[in-house]
């Protein structure tokens, strides 16, 4: 198992692409790598700090059938998350289960998730967006939960995130992203960058499947062990395999 240590969120150097870079790094990191937790903590803090419409942020992970919040920007976000875990129902659970973003444009009009609605509304939250985050395996490793006070300001962010996951062409995505705050533009760039990392890793898995006659699960395990034996980066190993096969 790789035991690379990541610097804590607070000591990361500030930059104009730090959120983007962190999401891309997460997508190239194996799901069981201890570095994932530190990367998720960084994503949460940066999301709360850089996304203008977002009041609080948190990250939910699933272990077997249990959900838990592994990072949060505020205890208020934790309270909203825990209301969902108590009911075993809510947007962040749907996001992890389905692998697609879940937008709640108006929390007060939600009757599907009463525990979530009542807790969030009591805390002054009016709109939310849960975004699946990719780690190395290519499946949602966590749900990034973004909570806002104002539906009007959350709506453009949600629309852009949904379009990004919908594999929207540049012509449709660009106008949605153009007017977002710089932090939100970083988020979208990070999600798209993570998709590109996922694609490279899956292509490498395909090559291993073909060369070894194995299945996707074992091919990922081989890729994972190769990464552990070298730099620890799945992306680097995958990129080498993909490039090497074309040489």
């Amino acid at each position, binding site marked *: 198992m790789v035991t690379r240590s990541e610097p804590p969120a607070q000591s990361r150097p500030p930059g104009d692409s730090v959120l983007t870079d962190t999401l891309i790094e997460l997508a190239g990191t194996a799901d069981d790598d201890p570095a994932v937790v530190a990367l998720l903590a960084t994503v949460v803090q940066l999301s709360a700090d850089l996304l203008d419409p977002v009041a609080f942020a948190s990250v939910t992970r699933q272990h077997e059938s249990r959900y838990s919040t592994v990072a949060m920007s505020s205890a208020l976000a934790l309270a909203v998350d825990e209301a969902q875990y108590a009911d075993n129902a809510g947007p962040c659970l*749907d996001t992890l289960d*389905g*692998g*697609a*973003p*879940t*937008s709640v*444009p*108006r929390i007060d*009009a*939600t*009757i*599907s998730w*009463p525990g979530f609605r009542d807790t969030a509304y009591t805390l002054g939250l009016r709109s939310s967006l849960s975004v*699946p985050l990719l780690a190395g395996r*290519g*499946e*949602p490793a966590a749900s990034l939960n973004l909570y806002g006070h104002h539906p009007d300001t959350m709506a453009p962010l949600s629309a852009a995130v*949904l379009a990004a*996951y*919908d*594999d929207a062409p540049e012509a449709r995505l660009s106008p949605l992203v153009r007017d977002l705050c710089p932090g939100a533009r970083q988020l979208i760039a990070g999600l798209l960058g993570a*998709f590109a990392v*996922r*694609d490279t890793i*899956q*292509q*490498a*898995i*395909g*090559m*291993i*499947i*073909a*060369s*070894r*006659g*194995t*299945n*996707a699960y074992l091919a990922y395990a081989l890729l994972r062990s190769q990464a552990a034996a070298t730099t620890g980066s799945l992306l680097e190993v995958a990129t080498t395999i*993909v490039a090497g*096969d*074309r040489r």
Partner: protein
Amino acid sequence: MSQDRLDPVAAFAELGRISLAENDLHGVLDRVADLARRTVPGTEEASVTLVRMGTAKTAAYTGPLALALDEWQYRRGTGPCLAAAAEQTTVSAPDLAGDRRWPGWAERAVAAGVRSSLSVGLIIGEQVHGALNLYGVRDAAFDHDAVVLAETFAGFAAVALSNANLYGTTARLARQLEAAMASRAVIEQAKGIIMGSRRCTADEAFAILTAISQDSNRKLRDVAAALVAEAGNGGDR
């Protein structure tokens, strides 16, 4: 008059318990119409009018009388349901026998045995308006308290309906996105298999995959999954 009356508090609670995951918009509308009929005193039959893109239709009704009286209005383009939906207001007709506001309709309603009507406008979404329509068989069937109750009921119903409308749209998008995400990994793996065997780029591999899909008239995801399964089995031979 119906005997299965419901206490308003119980009706509002039931509106709040409607499961959107198990009901589409029409399922929610059916529940709203049924609860309204059982809750508002004086109601013989109830219906819900939806107006989309200028076209009105009855999306839910508790009996054929309500449907017939609604549809007459849509054909003629006039009547209390349409007025309530268009103006987002409450239109009460306590004495249809003497009401001259909608020529032809009141006479038809009276001939069918309806003496009073009450329509409350609903805002369901940006593109969708509607009205909750209540029909009574007595003159002045809907007193002041009944009107207030119907308006309160309509307020609850509008939230449930707008949420169902939103939920339907969001759920469709979520299913679409989930399917796209699930397909993506296997498509990339298939591209990798093609890249390895043909020594080509990812874009070229995708073009080959797309061509196979089109030639065989199979979905891209299915072609990719078959390719991955076939390559995986190759090692066992």
